[in-house]
């Protein structure tokens, strides 16, 4: 049995269903991200685990105990909020020790635990300060320490980094992950930032419109997106409209140029239209491998981004964007230039659902 189990969870507000049939089993010590655009139900799901929302149906079990209807203060979970939510009238040390204080723990225990937590977040000197005297990044680390001080069974993080600067976001997410590993705590992390989810998660749940789109490791989610939504939401993606010529041999056309897809065409009729996806990093201007695909097109746009150059090539109805490394010895093509782009057969992803013209 998994450590945290969510079964058939559903939440509706009146006629509006915001979470539908959510099923997930999380192992002890696992770091799972809920990823999706705003309004996809990820935060509502998290808040049901926390106990701030009551599920319309379904069950939540933590460590074998059914907590579906338990009050938030009886679940022993920790939570880190987007806006830090530190208590402004308390010092950093009082904030971190608050959970222990309301649990009537002895003062000595609180003191040592607070010191331990402040050392963990590398802010041992700041115990006497007030929240408004700290930077956003420091406040969020304190919020993390406060949530962890009561030794919760599960740590919930609700977009904890989205109020912070880009640089601090990257360093703090690594720190959060390191602390989570060190303590071996089970964590659920809600974010709309795919890079964040990919970089720190053991597993990712991609959500859209209240439904789970796909559950998998970052590697699986990125390389083998199962739906068009996942493919487009995670990473950047070229989506091309293609016509099926022969499903068995994988022959298709894009703007009347023949290419071959290696998989994913089972049961598709010839003449049907399908969306196919291509990661930018699979595309190059170099000569193709023996069994590779090529498409001839015209350079439509060249953007110089520093270390890389982004090139958009048009074939007719479809375009492909991809990056090449900036090499002073080999200048990028010019706009209007005829080029041939190459990509491997197995780089093509045929997406679910037929695409009407």
């Amino acid at each position, binding site marked *: 049995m998994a450590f945290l189990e969510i079964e058939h969870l559903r939440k509706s507000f009146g006629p509006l269903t915001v979470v539908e049939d959510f099923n997930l089993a999380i192992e002890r010590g696992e770091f799972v991200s809920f990823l999706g655009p705003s309004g996809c139900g990820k935060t509502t799901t998290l808040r049901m685990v*926390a106990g701030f929302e009551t599920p319309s149906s379904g069950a939540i079990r933590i460590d074998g105990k059914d907590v579906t209807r338990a009050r938030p203060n009886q679940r022993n979970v920790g939570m880190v909020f987007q806006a830090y*939510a530190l208590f402004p009238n308390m010092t950093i040390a009082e904030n971190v020790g608050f959970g222990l204080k309301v649990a009537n723990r002895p003062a000595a225990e609180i003191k040592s635990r607070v010191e331990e937590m402040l050392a963990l977040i590398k802010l041992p000197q700041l115990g006497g300060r007030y929240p408004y005297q700290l930077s956003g990044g420091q406040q969020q680390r304190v919020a993390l320490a406060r949530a962890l001080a009561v030794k919760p069974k599960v740590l919930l993080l609700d977009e904890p980094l989205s109020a912070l600067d880009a640089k601090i976001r990257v360093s703090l997410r690594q720190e959060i992950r390191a602390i989570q590993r060190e303590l071996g705590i089970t964590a659920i992390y809600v974010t709309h930032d795919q890079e964040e989810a990919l970089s720190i998660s053991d597993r990712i749940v991609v959500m859209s419109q209240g439904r789970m789109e796909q559950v998998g490791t970052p590697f699986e989610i990125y390389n083998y997106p199962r739906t068009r939504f996942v493919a487009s939401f995670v990473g950047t993606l070229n989506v091309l409209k293609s016509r099926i010529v022969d499903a068995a041999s994988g022959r298709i056309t894009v703007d009347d140029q023949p290419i071959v897809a290696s998989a994913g065409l089972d049961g598709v009729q010839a003449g049907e239209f399908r969306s196919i996806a291509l990661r930018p990093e699979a595309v190059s201007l170099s000569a193709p491998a023996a069994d590779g695909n090529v498409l001839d097109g015209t350079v439509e746009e060249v953007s110089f981004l520093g270390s890389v150059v982004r090139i958009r090539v048009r074939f007719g109805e479809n375009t492909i964007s991809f990056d090449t490394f900036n090499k002073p010895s080999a200048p990028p093509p010019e706009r209007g230039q005829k080029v041939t782009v190459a990509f491997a057969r197995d780089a093509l992803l045929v997406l679910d659902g037929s695409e009407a013209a």
Partner: protein
Amino acid sequence: MTETAASQVVPPRTRLALPDGFSWAWLGVMPFFLFAVMFLILPTGFLVVGAFQDNEGHFTLRNIVNLFQPSILNAYWISIKVSAVSAVVGAIFGFFLAYAAIAGGVASWIRPTLMTFSGVASNFAGVPLAFSFLATLGRTGLVTALLIKYLDFNIYSTGFNLLSFSGLVITYLYFQIPLMVLIMAPAIDGLKREWREASTILGASTWQYWRYIALPVLWPSLFGTTLLLFANAFGAIATAYALTGSSLNIVTILLFAQIRGDVLHDQNLGYALALGMILITGLSNGAYIWLRSRSERWQR
């Protein structure tokens, strides 16, 4: 030694030159400062100085000493009592009303309705307010009459009198409560939902949330606004005057009578009376402003 001394010498030229900031820019605010001096500072200052002078303009503390005669002390005492009770009761009820409308999970039309009404009621002071309460709780008022007719209960037989201390407090609450609502609303808005959620998930009960977080955060606003209500009631006169005539001996009515007809027969004692009022309202307002700045520190 010589080196430090030399470095401390200020070049004479900069000392003599006008500061850079002294320019035409100051002229722009001159009308305002002239107005403030003429209609705020001088009139008040005149009274304050006069409070320490005798009729010939010599310095004296007699006027201050004379304040401590029973009739004047009594007037101050009744004023303080009316203001304090109406401020505290108004603050409590106003806070509960504002909290219920803003954070109480009630229908969404309640809040704007209460706010608009509070804006009206907090300005509906003075003479008309007295008329309203006379029509309500006066000897022939509607509520008085209905209580006699249906419950056979005469509130006037219990010793209640609208033209007395308790009546004045009930009447003052009509503008004190709305004022509290208006001033506390932003402070209650400042209570973040996440604080409650964070405290709950850390194991705190509702009581512990109020005890350790909400009340400490709100305390400066609560206490400060109560002081503001106190000063507001202390300086009020029109409602009391219209309600009780000059039968209720409060400071503002005493001063009013003194200005009109010199009942005290002593100009400078009147100044001292005014000085006492300025001190009391000044202290409570000063404390309000200080507490307010403290509470704003957290709102960052």
